[in-house]
């Protein structure tokens, strides 16, 4: 019975990871990925590994989405002048 919370969080993580793969637009993938980071931290906490959860939270909730969004923005900006030239 006490495993119910583990099952719930595992199901959420599995569904969220699948959703992150299925999305096509990189910006939307980054959004789902940030939710996945928070859910993974909850999973690690439920599995009694709060130290791993802390680092996952620090990296997954803010840093990874920031890097991805900066890359997407840079690429879009670089692509725009070429399209205008054509």
């Amino acid at each position: 019975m006490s495993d119910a919370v583990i099952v719930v969080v595992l199901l959420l993580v599995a569904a969220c990871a699948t959703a992150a793969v299925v999305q096509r637009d990189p910006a939307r993938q980054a959004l789902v990925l940030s939710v996945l980071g928070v859910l993974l931290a909850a999973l690690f906490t439920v599995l009694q590994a709060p130290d791993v959860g802390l680092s996952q939270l620090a990296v997954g909730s803010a840093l990874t989405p920031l890097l991805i969004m900066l890359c997407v923005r840079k690429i879009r900006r670089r692509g725009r002048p070429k399209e205008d030239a054509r």
Partner: protein
Amino acid sequence: MNGWILAATVALGGGGAAVLWGVTTGPPARRVIAQNLATSAVCPALLLLSQGYGRPAYVDLALLLALLGPVGTLVFARLLCDDLSEEGASAWALTWTAAGLGAAAVVALCVAVGPGRAMVKLLVVGALLISGNVIASRALAGGFRGVRGG
């Protein structure tokens, strides 16, 4: 399984399902709101879990999430501002519902813990969670026009 873990399971299940549904469907504005909701749903659940497992050290996770969750949302609010400015992502009913959930969890835990250092820490986490949630919602709704663009 005690009541605290049961409450955390309900918060995680309900909040997580709503966040997943919101973040995978609909226009970009709704997705960012759902991403913001993830912080305000998981943070009270982490607090409840820490009480349920009887490990006060687990409160640190909720503290870090309350600090970094709004930062992540502000990243999206800043870098997706082109998509957001068309629609204006405002959902104040949802924002205050989430803030009420966090406040209810913090008050219940404060009653259980009793006065002392742990209670001060819980109150700090609650204040950070609610203020971060409101600031991120305001940024998403276009409340800070001065820092936008660019």
